[in-house]
Structure formats: structure tokens, C-alpha cells
């Protein structure tokens, strides 16, 4: 197995970077692709000869419901090439998060339905001439095209809510595809994710119907890589160049403590450990082994029973430990490797020195077990109070994410500053943050009788004014009434808030926090 894995891997980057990686989904934009219809047998043949980049319907197995066929893109394959039936394909379901990408056996592919073949270079080039100035390198060109298409897609979707795909989604929801009713307050986990580039912000301010928008983005994208690395060097731990990150996850199962979980994304654990059946991780020192014997040996020697730092908060069975990336390199690297498995946009390009890690643990008779953590720049140039945040998957949907977020804002309050999480947020991160912001702001508003400014809310909650605005807009609380702006809390909003409050299990007790902001001299922040 390891042999084949390595072979696969060495092959992988070139395939990945091939122009065929462009994703034109089942959106109107995808009509430009060349659907080959008719002779399905011929198509299947064609597909088997070069499966990478093809899009076809793949059976997606659902946990609590019936499986369905969804359009998916083939990102990789493995197995004996002479026996197609035993081949395995790594598929990315279109419009699903990457964390649901998986290896599927050949029989789950539906070769009888239409297959979209990736565009040839020629076709690609044509499109470029039409839409964008040709970028300088082939690799970038693919990237640029992809990005551009993405925004094109977005604009069409954004402007008309009634596109077929959108409709179908709603139907899906109605069909009860998502979530289980009941335990609701928490969203599973987060991945923070690195902010969109500056140009992304700009484009967002533009009219989405502006046809120039699409063409404007790609050239900037071409030099954003250097820009991004420079940005990563000085700050931040999130990457926005998703294509930089290997697209095929290299780990299957992770055993940590008593839990077993599936990895979500690629993580740069040593190459030899990639594609191992199971990665054993010591719960306390986060050391990783593929051999069970090694784990046993390690456990017999490991003396850690809590994160190797200073405890700064203890209330009930929850403790927070503050860990300096500079002082606890190995531990923090291990943590980052682990969290990369669950955070798509996190980058490990640079070392952990400029970050402090706040680790939340749950205490029991064996020690303080890591539940989640967030990292924070020692000095944020962009006023971020949080870089990455993760609740380990085995502890998700239990309210710990909210605790972590709350704790990060408590730290900001002690610092006397306002802060915001580093962007981009992951989908889970966005939902969690929105929930926290809504809850906090609504609570403040309900307890306030006077008029209030957004600034004031910001000062009292340490949430940035932008995030407050975002939240108020999101809950539809900003109204224009008799010539004046007002905040109007809808009945449903209040209902929701009360419901949530009743359910609340845990809270951060600010008075239990014994913490002073760490100050670093310039030389300490030199990151050598």
C-alpha cells in the first residue's frame, strides 16, 4: 500500500495542476463546456482513458438518508489500470465543500449519464482570449480561468435567485437533506479561512452585474501568489489560494484519545504517513504515529497531561491554556498539522512563532483533553483577534465553538480592543460567528433602553463595527423609519434568542480569566 500511495502522490501534482482542473459546475456557466451526449459507451471509454477533470454523476452516500447521485469532478484515481472495475476515484462533489471529497469505487460512478470532459487547451485558450488577458504561465492560466469562471458563476447566481440550481437546493432542504432537527444551537466546527485578497473586497463592492468584473480579477490573481506569501510571512495563517493546497486529502482516519475521526482536508504530515489507514495521535502531546505499537510505546513514556503552557482560565471542567508558538514549537506544529486536517484555508507555509495558541481543554481524571483551540497573532497588523479556530470534529456540535469565540472576545475585552477573526471564514466558521454575534448583540440590545451607536456596541462587545453591521443586516434589524435609522428587533429574532438562551449549556465566566496580554519586544517578534 505505501508504495502505491507514493507513486500516486508523485503523479498527483502534475495532474492537479493541469488545466482540466477548472471546475465548471452544473450552473448555467457550465453550458459552455462541451457535454458529450449520445453514445455513452464511447464516453465511458473516453473517460477511462483520462478520467482526471471529468465531471459526471457519482452516487453520494448519505448518513441518514437515501443516497443520491450528484455531479462530481474526478480529481484523482488509483488502482490497477487494467481492471477498471477495481479502480478508485477521488471525487469532489460539485457545490459541496471539499471536506466531503472522497474515494469512491468505480461502481458508484454513473457512466451512463452525461459526462463533461475537461476542455482541451485549445478551448481553454479561446475562452481566455474572449474573457481575459492571457496570464503568463500555463499553471496560472488555469487558475485564472477557474477563478474568473467562479466569479462569473457567482454573478449569475447572485443576481437571479431563481436559477435552477438554487431552486434545487431549496428543494433539497425541504427534503430534509441537512441536519437533524433538535440539537441545534451549535454549528459543527470551523475553519477559519484566510481573507480574500484586497481585490476580492473591491470586486465585491462592484455591481455584480458588471461584465467587467470577471475580466478584472484574473490578472490580479496572477501576482497574488507572491503577495500572499509575503502576507503570510508577516502575518496570518490563512491562505486564500485554495489551489495551492493539495486537493486530495492524504489521511483517512485519525485516532486521537478515544475518538476516531475522518480527516477533512490535506495536511502536510510526513509523506510516509500519507494515505495510511490510520494516524494515531497522542491526545496530549499531539505526536503522530502510524504504528499502533509506536503509539503504545509513546503512551508508556509520555508525561504530558495537558497542553504544555500556562493555564489562564478554569471554570467548571473547562480550562484554557496559553501557549507561545515560539516556546513550544513541536507542540504547536503538531497542533497545526492536526488542525490542518480540518481547516481548508489554513496554511502551514510558515512556522508557528508569531502565534499564541489558546487551547480549550476538558478536564477529567486522565488529564486536560484538548477540545479545540484558536490561534492569535502576537501582533496583528489588521486588528484580527483570532487567526485560526477549530473545535476538533469529535467535539463539534456541543457548544464548544461558541465558547472558543466567546473566549477570544473576552481576551479582546481585557486588551481593550475590538477584533475580528482572520478571513476567510469557512462555512462552519461563518455560521458559528454569526450565531455568536447575533446572540451577543441581541442580548445587548435587549438590555439597552437608550439609543445606541454601533461604536458603542462595538466597545462593549469587542466586536468590530463591520461585524456588527453585518449581523444587524443579517437579522434584518436595521430599518429606516420615519426618516431615521433605527434598530428594530424582529419578533422572530427575539424568539430565537430566547430559545437559544434556554438551551445554553456552557458559558465563559469572564471573572475566571486570569490573564494579562503578553507583550513582545520587537526582537521577540522578529521570527527568526
Amino acid at each position, binding site marked *: 500500500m505505501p508504495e502505491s500511495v507514493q507513486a500516486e502522490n508523485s503523479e498527483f*501534482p502534475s495532474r492537479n495542476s493541469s488545466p482540466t482542473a477548472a471546475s465548471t459546475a452544473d450552473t448555467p456557466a457550465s453550458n459552455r463546456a462541451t457535454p458529450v451526449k449520445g453514445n455513452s459507451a464511447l464516453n465511458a471509454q473516453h473517460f477511462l482513458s483520462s478520467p482526471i477533470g471529468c465531471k459526471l454523476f457519482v452516487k453520494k452516500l*448519505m448518513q441518514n438518508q437515501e443516497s443520491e447521485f450528484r455531479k462530481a469532478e474526478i480529481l484523482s484515481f488509483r488502482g490497477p489500470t487494467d481492471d477498471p472495475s477495481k479502480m478508485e476515484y477521488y471525487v469532489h462533489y460539485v457545490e459541496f465543500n471539499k471536506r466531503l471529497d472522497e474515494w469512491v469505487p468505480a461502481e458508484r460512478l454513473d457512466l451512463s449519464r452525461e459526462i463533461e470532459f475537461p476542455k482541451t487547451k485549445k478551448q481553454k485558450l479561446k475562452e481566455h482570449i474572449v474573457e481575459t488577458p492571457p496570464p503568463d504561465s500555463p499553471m496560472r492560466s488555469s487558475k485564472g480561468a477557474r477563478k474568473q469562471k*467562479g466569479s462569473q*458563476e457567482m454573478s449569475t447566481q447572485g443576481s437571479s435567485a431563481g436559477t435552477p440550481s438554487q431552486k434545487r437546493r*431549496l428543494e*433539497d*432542504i425541504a427534503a430534509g*437533506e*441537512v441536519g437533524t432537527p433538535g440539537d441545534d*444551537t451549535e454549528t459543527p466546527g470551523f475553519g477559519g479561512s484566510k481573507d*480574500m485578497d484586497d481585490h476580492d473586497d473591491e470586486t465585491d463592492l462592484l455591481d455584480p452585474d458588471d461584465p467587467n468584473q470577471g475580466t478584472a480579477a484574473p490578472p490580479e490573481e496572477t501576482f497574488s*501568489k507572491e503577495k500572499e506569501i509575503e502576507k503570510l510571512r*508577516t502575518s496570518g495563517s490563512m491562505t486564500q489560494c*485554495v489551489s*495551492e493546497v*493539495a486537493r486530495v486529502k492524504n489521511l483517512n482516519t485519525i485516532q486521537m484519545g478515544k*475518538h*476516531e*475521526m*475522518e480527516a477533512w482536508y490535506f495536511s502536510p504530515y510526513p*509523506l510516509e504517513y500519507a494515505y495510511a489507514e490510520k494516524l494515531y495521535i497522542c491526545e496530549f502531546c*499531539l505526536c503522530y504515529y502510524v504504528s499502533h*505499537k509506536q503509539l503504545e510505546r509513546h503512551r508508556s513514556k509520555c*508525561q504530558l497531561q495537558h497542553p*504544555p503552557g*500556562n493555564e489562564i482560565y*478554569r471554570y467548571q471542567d473547562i480550562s484554557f491554556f496559553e501557549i507561545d508558538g515560539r*516556546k513550544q514549537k*513541536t507542540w504547536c*506544529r503538531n497542533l*497545526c*498539522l492536526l488542525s490542518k486536517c480540518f481547516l481548508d484555508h489554513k496554511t502551514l507555509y*510558515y*512556522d508557528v*512563532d508569531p502565534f499564541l495558541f489558546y487551547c480549550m481543554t476538558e478536564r477529567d*481524571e*486522565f*488529564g486536560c483533553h484538548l477540545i479545540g483551540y484558536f490561534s492569535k497573532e502576537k501582533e496583528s497588523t489588521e486588528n484580527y483577534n483570532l487567526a485560526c479556530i477549530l473545535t476538533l470534529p469529535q467535539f463539534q456540535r456541543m457548544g464548544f465553538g461558541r465558547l472558543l469565540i466567546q473566549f477570544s472576545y473576552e481576551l479582546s475585552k481585557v486588551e481593550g480592543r475590538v477584533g475580528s477573526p482572520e*478571513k476567510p471564514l*469557512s*462555512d462552519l466558521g461563518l455560521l458559528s460567528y454569526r450565531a455568536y454575534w447575533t446572540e451577543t448583540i441581541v442580548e445587548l440590545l435587549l438590555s*439597552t433602553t437608550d439609543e*445606541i*451607536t454601533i*461604536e458603542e456596541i462595538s466597545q462593549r462587545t469587542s466586536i468590530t463595527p463591520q461585524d456588527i453591521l*453585518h449581523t444587524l443586516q443579517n437579522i*434584518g434589524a*436595521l430599518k*429606516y*423609519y420615519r426618516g*431615521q*435609522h*433605527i*434598530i*428594530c428587533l424582529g*419578533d*422572530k429574532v*427575539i424568539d430565537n434568542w430566547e430559545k437559544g438562551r434556554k438551551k445554553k449549556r456552557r458559558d465563559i465566566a469572564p471573572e475566571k480569566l486570569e490573564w494579562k496580554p503578553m507583550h513582545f519586544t520587537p526582537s521577540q517578534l522578529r*521570527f*527568526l
Partner: protein
Amino acid sequence: MSSRFRVKRLKFDQSLAIHRQSDLPDLEDQLNGQRSAPQVETGVDKEEEEEHHLQAAISASHAAYTTGGQDSRLYIPTPDASQTIDLKEFHRLYKTPFNNPSSFVRFSATVEDSIGCPYMMDEVDDEWLMTFNKSHPKLVLSEDTFESILWRIESVSLEKVPYLETDITNIPPYSEFEPEFSVKPYTTFKEQAKHVYEHWKKRRIIRKGVPLIPSVKMDEALRDDSDPYVCFRRRETKAVRKTRRTDQQSMEKLRKLRAELETARSLLEMVTRREKLRKESLLMEHSIFNQRCMLREMQQQLDIKDEQDLFPIKKKRKTEAYSSTRIKIPINKLKRDVYDADKKSAAQAAIDAEVARRRERNLGFEDVTDSGYQPFLPSIPSQFFRNVEKPSETTPRRQPTYRKRIGRGGRVFIDRRGFRPAETGGKYKPSLPMESDASDDEDYMVDDMDDRYLSYSCSLLQENELRNLITIPSLNPNTITAQQVGIILPAQALKTQVPNDPTRSSQQAIPIKRQSSKQRLTPQQAALAMTNDMIAANVAAAVGTPHRDKASMQLALQHLQQQHGTTDVGTLQKKILTAQLAQHQRLKEDPNGPQKENGNRRMTIQMPPNLLQTKTQVLLSPSSNPPTQSGSTDAIELRQQHLLKKPTTLPNTPVDSPPHQHSQPSLTHQV
């Protein structure tokens, strides 16, 4: 309501009223406020924002806020994480119970510190070890020892051949590791180490030289950005470096400043401490004083006399004060001093000798340096008075003294002091207020026309001054007319008498005024003539023409005689003679005189004529004749000026001549 009017933009510092939806039944459009603020981004990556599950969750929550959808929160599906391992297995792995400290955990040990030997044996090692232990029952290795030996080999090999994977043939033989196992903890396992080495070598070769413990790729050399496995790169500090020096400098400065401030602060602290103590001691003293007062009162009341017993402190103080002027030398020190006496340094001996010498030298002198009374020095002008003769027993108790003085306009005065004109001599003016300096002198009778004095006083004058010595009638109310005329006259005199042959002047630069004794003039006429003569003489002298007019001289003489009614011609003549003699002497002494004269005379011409009249003068009419020649006809008159207290001199007196003469103002002259 659509956008018929433009909604004002919302600002962050804008006050917003808070309402509940139920309070505002007339609220129109759900969305009408949303336009006013820019739509804030979600912060999610653009591509991901469109993902199915996120959109579903967002719209679901939106529905919950607006229409009250049933299930407000939707989960985004995530891969499975719900599985747990067998609990027994878990407890096998995690068995150390945790003693929760009551205080917050403080921990700084690293992972490396906490996990012991970094090498963890895997299944392959386990198998090998089992077979080894079976086949070598005498060399049984525990797992821990095995690991430590293997780790030793591994770490040494990493040091020696760090890039073994590039060329597996470089794998070092056991001999290279042997010395490692002759040191302490491994000595007992030397035998086993060899076997372990073989095992290690085999494994390493299987792994193509790659180290047994896989590590994440952090290779600096691999600057390959596209390799996703390279992580935790070090940050280059290029951009930061620029500011580093300045940072360091300012750091240094700040540190220094801090240290200085620290010092200042501690100083101030000490000062406050001292002042506090001082205040305390003051208060203490005050209270002691009060107590004493009370005590004294009590004593008086109780009539206790014996103060000594009651004021022990005071007594002590006294002795203290007394002793403060002396140096107490403790006995042990004293001894040492004696002991050290002969060791006195040479320098000390020299100093002592010098002190003794000075003391001897100063013997008989009274040291008034520190005495309370210091007499004032005589004023500087009075210091110029000189005695005529050296003081001796024979001279009267006080001799008259003289000094020469340059007055305004450069006129030369001879001041004298200590004169009391003889009663017989005629006029005596006892107590006219003395001019400035010689005020305290007691006057006594002296014949100031005594030859001795005269000759001395004359000797003070330089020749040219003597020559200018001219007597004029004193300006008194009677002579006012003459004076008035005199004002006009100088011009005439200039006109009439100047035209003389200038060529003769160089040799005979001695203006002489002669007055014919035969001529008889009225006092007014005489005065007029005198004035004329004087001016003419001055002018002539200035021009360099000798002007000999005996007549005017004689006129003046006669006039003087008439005025003062003195008839003692003999004395007068005698005096004049003496004066002439003195002048002669002076001439001899000062050969430079004539030359000087020329230069000086020129100055007179610049004198405004009115000055000559308005100011009163003692003019010694200069006699240019040699003493032999001057004889009886020439006379020099010292005239006393009655009208003016302060005689002035003519401006042609050299300024540089020191004024060492007597003041004369109050003196009356007898001619």
C-alpha cells in the same frame, strides 16, 4: 417602498433607537433599511460561499429571523467523527491518573522534555526484539533499552552522515558507533548494541537511507512553494531588518532612560525618607523642649536647685559641643600614631619644616588679617601727596605736602596740604572747606613762601608748566569789566600779536611776558593788559613765536602789589628767584621739555577763547629767560584766585603728567 428618496448612509457613530418589531406596527418594508448601509461581506471565500450546504444553512437561518422557519439552524454535514475506540484499549493507552492542581497550571517543559526517548519502536522492531531476546537469553534487552540504543545510533548517524539518503553506501560501520557505547549508561549494553546496530542498518537500508523517524518537510533548501508537504518555513526577516537597528537603538535609549529615571526615583525616595526623619527629629526636639520647660516650671514650683541631675542631656550636649572643636582620638589610634610617628613621610616633614620657618619669619608681626578693624586706605588722590623732605626729628611735626594735579582743561595745579600760613604772613584763612581729599589734616602755621617749600613745589612742575606760570589779577567783582573786555580781546590779540616770525620759534620756544615797571596802568587797564598778554602769550606759544613782553608781567606784578597791599618786595623777589632757580633746575633735568612743549602748545589754539576768560586761572607766567638773565625784572607770580574755589589749569599741560601736588584752593597768598 422603493427608492424614491435617498436614504442617508448609516454611520458607526450614529445613534440608533432600539425598537421591537411589535412596537412599530406601521413599519413599512422589511428591507427598507438595508439599502442604507453597504452590504457587508460574509468573509467566506467566494467560491465556498456558494456551496450548497452553506447556502442552505444561511437561507434557513434567514428564514428563521424573518418568517420564523421551524428549524432555524441547519448543519453543514461533515465527515464522520463519532466513532470511538474500545474503552479498554483507551484505558490501556491512557492510564496515568491526573492530579488536578488546585492552582492554575504553570508549565514550560516542551514536548521533547516530556516524551523521553524520541524513538518509538514499531512492530518491526518489536518482532526483531522478541526474536533477539529469544536467541540471546543472556543479552535480553528491554524495550526501553532497545529504543535508547537505537536512538543513540540514529542520532549519531544523523550527525555524521546527515544526507545518508543521497548515497546509501555511506552508511557508517559499527566501529564508528562503538565509542558511543563505551560511555556510562550504555556500557552494559555494548554487546547488544552491536546487534541493534545491525538491525538499524538493515532498516535504514530498506528505507533507502531515510531516517527511521519520519519528519515533516521543513527543508530550507526546498524553497519549493508548490510542494504542499513543505511546511513551517522560517520567515525571512528581510523587510524587518531595516528597522531593526533603529529599534535596537531606541530600545537602548529607552533602557538607559529607564535606568536614569529609576535612579532619580530612588534618590527622591531617599530624600523623602531623610526629610521624614528630619521632621520626626524636629518634632522630637520640640517635645523635649516642651518637657524641659515643664520640668523647669516644676523645679521652680518645687524649688529644686540641683539642675545638674535633672538636665543630664543638656550637660552632655555641652560637652559634645565643646569636644566638637577638638579631635578626639581613640586610644588605640593614638597608640598607632605614636607607633607610626617615625614613619612620617618625607613630604610631611618638608611641610612641617616650611610651617616652622614661616612662623619664625612672621615673628614680631601682628597678624591683623583676621582682626575686626581694618582701616580704610587713604583715597587714591591723597596718596599722591609727597613730603618735601624725608621725615626726620628736626622737621616740624608735620610737613606740608604737595602734589601735582591736572585739572579740567589740562591745567596743572599744585595742591598742598598741611599749611597754615604764618600769622605774620598776612592773610590767613582758617577753615575754608578743604577740597576733597585733605580734609582731615590739621592746619598749622607754615611759611609756605619758605624757599624750601617753594622750590619743591616748583620742582613738581615741568618746565613748560613753569613757563606758563602766569599770574593774573584775580577776578573779583571789581574786575568784571576787565573780564568782559577780555572776552572780546582774544580775537584782537590773535590778530595783532600773532604775526611774528615763525622761524625763530624752534630755538626760542619760551614765551616770556615782561612788563615794564615804568608803565603805570589803572587796575582795569592792567587787568586788560594782563589778559591780553596772557592770551597773546598763549597764542604766541602755540604758534611758536616767542613773545617777550616784560611790561605785562610787571603790570601784573604791580597790580598784585596794589591789590593785596603787600609791599614786601624783597620776599617776593626772593621767591621769584627761587622759582626761577627751580625752573632752571628742571630745565636741566628735562631736556625733552622744549620739544614736548611744541606739541603741547599747539593744543591751545584749539581752545575756545571764551574758556580763557570764563575760567579762572592760576597762571604762572613763564619766564623763558635763563636764570641769570631773568634777574630782577622777571617775576613769576603765583596768584591766588579768590573768586573760584577750584582753580583750573590751562589745557596745554601734558595729560600724562601725574598729578602729585598739593591742593591749594583754600590758601591765601601773600605776595
